[in-house]
C-alpha cells in the first residue's frame, strides 16, 4: 500500500470520495442485477443501501468543497485489497441471496471501510488528516451499527431455500 496516503490530505480525500462513490455505483448495479433476476426483496434492499452510500458520498464530497483533488486512474489508488474496501465483491452475490446474507456482506464491507479510515487515523503524522480520518471513522462506525441493527431486526428465521430451478441455456 502506498503510504503517501497517510500524509497527504488531498490524496486521502480522493480515496474517500472514490470509495463512497464506487460503493454507491456497485450497489446500484447489484440492485439492477437482482431486479433482472427477479429477487425483488434484495433489489429493494440494495437500492436502499445504494441510496445510503450515495449520501455518504455527498457527505465526504462536502469535505472537499473548493479543493482540487488529485485525478487518479482506477489503479492508482492504494486500497488495502484489490478493490476499494466499500466494494461488494461480485463473487459474494447470488441470485437467491437472502437479506441476511446481503446484510452480512454489507456489514463486512462497512467494517473494512471503518478499518481503512481507522488505519489512516492511526498512522498519519498529520493532525488535520488524523482529525478528518477519525471523523470519517466515527461516521463509518455509525454505519456499522446501522447495518447491525438491521440484521438484528430481521425477524425471519433462515428458511430452507434450495435452488430447485435448473439454469437454462439462452444461446
Amino acid at each position: 500500500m502506498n503510504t503517501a496516503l497517510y500524509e497527504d490530505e488531498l490524496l486521502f480525500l480522493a480515496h474517500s470520495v472514490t470509495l463512497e462513490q464506487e460503493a454507491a455505483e456497485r450497489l446500484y448495479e447489484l440492485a439492477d442485477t437482482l431486479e433482472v433476476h427477479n429477487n425483488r426483496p434484495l433489489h429493494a434492499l440494495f437500492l436502499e443501501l445504494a441510496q445510503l452510500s450515495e449520501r455518504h458520498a455527498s457527505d465526504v464530497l462536502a469535505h472537499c468543497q473548493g479543493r482540487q483533488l488529485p485525478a487518479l486512474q482506477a489503479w492508482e489508488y492504494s486500497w488495502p485489497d484489490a478493490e476499494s474496501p466499500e466494494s461488494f465483491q461480485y463473487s459474494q452475490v447470488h441470485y437467491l441471496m437472502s437479506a441476511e446474507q446481503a446484510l452480512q456482506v454489507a456489514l463486512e464491507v462497512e467494517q473494512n471501510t471503518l478499518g481503512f479510515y481507522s488505519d489512516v487515523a492511526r498512522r498519519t503524522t498529520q493532525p488535520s488528516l488524523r482529525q478528518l480520518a477519525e471523523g470519517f471513522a466515527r461516521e463509518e462506525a455509525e454505519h456499522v451499527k446501522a447495518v447491525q441493527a438491521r440484521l438484528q431486526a430481521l425477524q425471519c428465521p433462515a428458511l430452507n431455500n434450495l435452488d430447485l430451478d435448473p439454469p437454462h441455456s439462452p444461446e
Partner: protein
Amino acid sequence: MRNLTIAMTGSGGTGVVALGEMLLRAAAGAGYYGILRKTFGPQIRGGESAAVVRLGPRPLASFCGEIDLLLVLDWSHFQRFADEIPLSASTLIIEDVAAGARPQQLASELLAREQGVQVLDFSGLAQAQGSAHSNIALLGYVAAWLGCDGEPLQSAIDHRLHKQGAEVVALAHSVARAGAELLQQAPINLQPPDAGAAAESPWLATGNQLAGLGALEAGIRFVAAYPITPASDALEWMAGRIESLGGRLVQAEDELAAVNMAIGAGFGGVPAMTATSGPGLALMSEAMGLAVASETPLLVLDVMRGGPSTGIPTKSEQSDFNLAVYGLHGDAPHVVVAALSLADCHYSVAWATQLASERQTLVLVLSDQFLGQSMQVLPPLPSLPFHAELSRASLPPPAGADYFRYLDTDSGISPMALPGQPGGEYTADGLEHSQSAVPSARAQDHEQQLAKRQRKLQSLAASTQWGEVSALPQARILILCWGSLFPVALEAQQRLQERGTPVTVVGVRLLAPLPLESLLRSMQDMAQVLLVEQNHQAQFAHYLQSQLTQAQRAGLPELTCYSRPGPRLFTPQEIMQQVEGLPRA
C-alpha cells in the same frame, strides 16, 4: 376425454420449473397422460419462467391455445409470456399472496372477468414449516385437486429431491401435505381433467432423450458432440450411456471437427452421428458433402431453433428445412427425415441410423426445440426393427479379386470395405472418382457417380416409413404437414370432426427424397389441401411445388399454405381457423 392445461409462472428460483416437472410426474403416477413445456427469460438463472402442463386420459403430444388454470408464484414480467400463455375469460387464476403486483395491463382485465383471481397463502404455509418453497405447497394443493397427492406425489418429490438428503425430502413432503390440506378450505372451482388407465409403467421423456435412445438402440456407437441449444441434451443423454454399450462420445473443439470425426468413425464401420442446431448445421455443410461424395454413412440430428443466425436459440421453428434439403455444394443428394412427434424422435432417428449405413450416405434428421425439449408422459415405446449393421451384401469380395469401392451397381449401392478387411483397401475420396476410387475428372465417371449416388436413394421414396396418414373416410380436406406440427394437426383433426368437418392429416417423415407418389395419392380425392409449417418463407411448400411436374400440379386440388415463424407455439386452434377459412370447394 377432458384435457386440461395448467400454466405456472414465477421467476427462476421460485421453483416453477421444478413444480411443473413434479406435477407431471405425480400426475403420471396417477394415471394421467400429459406433456410439459418450459419457458424462460434470457437470464441463465433467476429469470422469469413458466411451465405449461397439459393433462388428460390419453397420450397428449401437443398443446392447445387454451389455458384452463394459471398458477402464479410471481407476476414479474408475466407480459413476456403473453404469447405463450394466452389467458381467456374462462382461465381460472390462483396466485400466491407473495406474487407481487399484477401486470398493469392485465390487472384491469382480470378484475373484469367472470372468474376472479383466487389469492392463497402458499408462501405462508411453507414458511410456517421453515421452508421457502411456496412451489411445493402449491404442488401439494394442485396434486390434491388432481387426486395424485398420495404415493404419486411423494415419489415425484423423492425423484426430484433425493440427492439433497432425507431432511430436505421430509420437509418437502410435509409442506406438500400442508398444501394438499388447503384444498379443503379453498377448493378449486374447476373440474379436474379425466384420468385414464395409463399404460403399465408409462414413460416420461423428452424428444431429445428419445432421439438418443433411437440412435443407441439402432446401433450408433460413436458420437461427436459440440454443445448447442437445443441439441445439447440429446448429446448429454447419450454421453452417460454410450460407453456401457462399448461406444464412445468425443467432445469436439467445434462443429467442423464433430462432423468430420463422425465421418471418420463411419468410414471405420462404426455407426456414428452428431447433433446440432442451425448455426452448427451450417458449419457442417462442407463435410456433409464429403459424406455424400465419399459415400460414408453419417447421421446428423438437427434440433431446430429460431433463425436466421443466432436467432432465437430457445424457441422452436421449422426454418432449417432449406439448409437441410439444399444446403450442400454441388449435386449432393442425401436423405432428410423429420421426426413427427416426441415418440417419433425415437422412430425417425432409429430408421435414419439404419438408412445411413444401408445407403452409405448422409442422413439428416430434423427435430426441433418443441419436440426436443418438451417432456411427455407416454406408453412405453416398442423396440424397433432398425439397425445400422451393414448387410453382408456390402462387403467386398475376398482378397485377390478385383474390388471396386464405387462399383456402379443397379441399386446404386456399392460394396463397402472396412479398414481391417484384406483385399478391400481403397482410398475414400471427395474428389470425383472412377468406380475403382481413383480420382477422375472425366465426364463419364462424373456422370456415372452422380447418377449412382442419386439412384441409391430413389427407391427410398417408396418406403412405407415415408409418413403417417390419419385418414377420415368422408374427408375432402387434407392437412399436410411435417415434423412437430403433426400432433398439432392431429388434434385439429379431432376437434374439427367434433364440429362436423372431417379432414385427413398427413405428416411427412421422409422429406428427401420426397415420397411424391404417396403424397399425390393422399391428395387425390381431396377438394382442398392445407399445408402448414412453422417458418416465414413456407419452405416445405415451395419444395413440394418444385417437385411436381406441370401435369401433376394441374391435377391437384387447390393448395393453400399457412406458414408462420416461431417463437409462438403452433396450436390446433389456428389450424382449425385456417381450415374453416378455406374457400368451399
